């Protein structure tokens, strides 16, 4: 492998000084002359008819500039793929936290006071909260005619079904007929917020040319422009999205949220409008991770070969489908029902179901932490039934070169076995455990390398440096630095000779933005090819100049003197997934306290099949960050609900891991540079999160013989299960 000068080295972040010194301006920090504040009133009921809204008292408040209800807005529905959500509830509310009115005031506190003066009369309707109950005959209907919504999938076995996603391989009936034994288990996963610490924020202003200027915590500026154009009934050219740093995304920052309301307030008041959600609003009405009920049935031969599997996932999607961006309006993670295994006969069915609960959206590796928890727990349970070692059972069935994934992709360069071996070795899997009530658990996963389309423009400056122009926000991953490294590497420059300039949505025609583990691939390849083109231009210009050793500055100046700029743009469009994927294998070692049921993770090992690593510190940061999110998901994070009401309305009640919760960690990289990204990079952002919960669940079972099938694995659940086990014996 060729040695790289810049790629593969740890280099300081583009945005470092701004972020450590407080200078970075996030959306909530944007201020403009005459700026006013928007705040929303939310429904206290899960399902009700709005009889009457009286805004007169709020309107009379000093400092209040506008109070709007659905009556004051055009009758449009918004969404990312399926358009089923009103800007403000019209005649009917479908979940606690749905927006019914919005206020603009000169001060945020005044705006909140004014909300309390809006009088809404509701007529309570029967509601449904459980996804299993929601698709029974006679269940209350959350929407009257969901099939009529723009972007609604055609298949709808029940009016409360948003979408059905299926994957099939072979002939599952025939496969089960061939099986010696069939095992079936059901798992439940919880509702969980992403936990980004920046609540959604945005500023909307009308400029002197009549254009709408937007600053928003949104990771897909071009898609945002399209969606706003749709929601506001404005041509796209009338809208400009200005990029700001994003205070954490994890899949949650791709929706419109309050931006259309901010626009209407700006239109009515003639003032720039800022809307920021309180964290309680995030927890009540963000776009959290779907809770799921997942059943797996696996048919095996007596010697442990998987011959068939049927998977059914039921996701509680809440009152609207609007937050899901995939064309299927479902969660692609359902395909992980096959795990990292060769399953010749497979049927996966994933249903997203309407209920009168908080609408769910995409969260880091959408659908995967749910499915991988179920699937990898199920693997251990089946191994146990077969009296097989969980490692051996997995090994017998691991994917190999040429195997097919549920989505039909044929795989090459499969590194499942190598990654498993690396994790086992580093975790000292086969050594005796240090004491009683201590257990080890294993889980595996894989994650595709994202696709999409991105622009990069590179320009040689007359001072001899290169500017990389992109319109891709950095959600925190350090993507801008990665792209800068790629350009520096191609052009043979030092990192300091490449500057990053962040453009607006005016700069390019379109761009798929950030998400789905795509940026190093799509942005990286765009930057790579743009830099290659610039290199050619520079070479030609140098030849024209006739000075073989001419400096870049001299070349740029010569071109400038001629009235020309040396710049190149590349639009990179990766349409389909590569034949390679990235495998992860993790081992948790836990201790269970028999008197309380408390689970402590004593140490954790994570092994990753990675491509060329462009920025080691950023790569490791993705592994560690995702892993601790996985740990929180496994052990503590849960939005409590009571009849559709979120009962954990602060970060004091919705627990996220702190620095006290992190276990000693060993990371192993199985480097295999065959990825589709620049310099053969692969993806990492969504790799480490999903296997954590099943690794811990499997370790708990190993430690104390109880199997927890619903997340999170709290002390109460383990203690209860230990008690039951005691009573049985």
């Amino acid at each position: 492998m060729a040695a790289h000068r810049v790629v593969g080295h740890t280099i300081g972040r583009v945005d470092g000084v701004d972020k450590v010194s407080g200078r970075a301006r996030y959306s909530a920090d944007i201020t403009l002359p005459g700026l006013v504040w928007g705040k929303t009133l939310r429904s206290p009921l899960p399902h009700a008819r709005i009889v009457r809204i009286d805004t007169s008292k709020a309107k009379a408040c000093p400092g209040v500039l506008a109070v709007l209800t659905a009556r004051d807005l055009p009758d449009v529905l918004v969404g990312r793929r399926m358009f089923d959500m009103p800007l403000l509830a019209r005649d009917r509310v479908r979940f606690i936290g749905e927006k019914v009115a919005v206020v603009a005031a000169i001060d945020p506190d005044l705006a909140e006071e004014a909300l309390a003066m809006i009088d809404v009369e509701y007529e309570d309707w029967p509601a449904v909260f459980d996804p299993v109950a929601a698709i029974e005959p006679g269940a209350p209907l959350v929407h009257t005619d969901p099939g009529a919504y723009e972007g609604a999938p055609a298949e709808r076995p029940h009016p409360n079904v948003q979408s059905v996603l299926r994957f099939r391989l072979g002939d599952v009936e025939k496969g089960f007929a061939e099986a010696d034994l069939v095992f079936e288990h059901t798992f439940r996963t919880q509702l969980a917020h992403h936990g980004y610490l920046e609540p959604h924020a945005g500023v909307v202003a009308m400029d002197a040319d009549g254009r709408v200027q937007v600053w928003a915590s949104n990771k897909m500026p071009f898609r945002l422009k399209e969606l706003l154009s749709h929601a506001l009934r404005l041509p796209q050219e009338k809208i400009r999205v200005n990029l700001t740093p994003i205070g954490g995304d994890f899949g949650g920052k791709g929706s419109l949220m309050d931006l259309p309301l901010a626009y209407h307030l700006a239109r009515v008041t003639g003032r720039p409008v800022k809307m920021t959600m309180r964290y309680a609003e995030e927890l009540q009405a963000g776009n959290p991770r779907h809770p799921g009920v997942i059943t797996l049935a696996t048919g095996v031969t007596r010697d442990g070969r998987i011959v068939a599997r049927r998977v059914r996932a039921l996701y509680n999607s809440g009152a609207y489908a609007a937050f899901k961006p995939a064309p299927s309006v479902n969660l692609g993670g359902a395909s992980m029902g096959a795990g990292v295994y060769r399953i010749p006969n497979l049927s996966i069915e994933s249903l997203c179901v309407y209920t009168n609960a908080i609408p769910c959206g995409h969260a880091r590796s959408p659908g995967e932490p749910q499915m991988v928890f179920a699937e990898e727990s199920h693997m251990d349970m089946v191994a146990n039934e077969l009296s097989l070692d969980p490692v051996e059972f997995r090994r017998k069935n691991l994917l190999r070169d040429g195997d097919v994934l549920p989505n039909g992709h044929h795989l090459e360069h499969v590194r499942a076995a190598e990654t498993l071996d690396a994790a086992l070795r580093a975790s000292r899997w086969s050594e005796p455990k240090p004491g009683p009530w201590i257990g080890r658990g294993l889980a595996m996963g894989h994650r595709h390398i994202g696709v999409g389309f991105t622009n990069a423009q590179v320009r040689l400056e007359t001072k001899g440096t290169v500017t990389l122009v992109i319109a891709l926000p950095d959600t925190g991953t350090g993507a801008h630095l990665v792209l800068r490294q790629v350009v520096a590497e191609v052009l043979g420059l030092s990192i300091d000779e490449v500057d990053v300039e962040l453009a607006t949505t005016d700069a390019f025609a379109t761009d798929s933005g950030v998400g789905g583990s795509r940026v190093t691939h799509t942005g990286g390849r765009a930057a790579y090819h743009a830099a290659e083109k610039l290199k050619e231009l520079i070479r030609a210009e140098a030849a024209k100049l006739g000075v073989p050793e001419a400096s870049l500055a001299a070349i740029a100046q010569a071109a400038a003197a001629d009235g020309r700029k040396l710049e190149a743009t590349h639009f990179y469009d990766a349409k389909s997934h590569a034949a390679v994927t990235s495998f992860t294998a993790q081992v948790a070692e836990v201790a269970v306290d028999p008197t309380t049921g408390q689970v402590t993770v004593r140490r954790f090992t994570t092994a990753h099949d990675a491509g060329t690593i462009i920025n080691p510190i950023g790569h490791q940061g993705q592994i560690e960050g995702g892993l601790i999110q996985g740990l929180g998901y496994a052990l503590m994070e849960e939005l409590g609900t009571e009849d559709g009401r979120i009962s954990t309305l602060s970060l004091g009640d919705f627990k996220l891991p702190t620095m006290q919760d992190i276990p000693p960690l060993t990371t192993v990289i199985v480097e295999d540079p065959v990825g589709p990204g620049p310099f053969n990079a692969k993806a990492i952002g969504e790799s480490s999160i999903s296997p954590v919960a099943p690794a811990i669940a499997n370790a708990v079972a190993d430690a104390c013989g109880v199997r927890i099938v619903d997340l999170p694995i709290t002390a109460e659940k383990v203690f209860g299960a230990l008690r039951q086990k005691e009573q049985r014996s």
Partner: protein
Amino acid sequence: MNRMIRLTVNGESREVEVPTYRTLLDCLRYDLGLTGSKEGCGVGVCGACTVLLDGKMVSSCIALAVFADGRDVTTVEGLAEDERLHPVQQAFMDFGGFQCGICTPGQVVAAKALLDETPHPGDAEIREWMLGNLCRCTGYYKILESVRAAAERSRA
């Protein structure tokens, strides 16, 4: 009801009229234009709004502005001296102690407060002190490393 308060912010004397219900965080951000301190949870749990009040760490989202009357406030904007980053800020840069950066102002202020009080903390002390500053990006390993490095550098 409004009140005039006088406070020292990052060494500079400031006078500002605020409603009595104004939080110190909102006063810093809206009245004084210092947007470095962030609102995360808004209930004193996440630490993104951490500032020093007379040298002691407080969550400015649950402290009232009038409470800071006559006192000395240090925010993230006040850590660097003459454009030279504070050793804690430099360590966060060098060791990957931040990703999205939204919690970082609070993290660096909290870490500075720790090192002011305990110049050479052990890992257990760092973990105990920093547990009030949530971070959702890094998984904390690199924050721990950054704080440790800042302490070690000051020893050298």
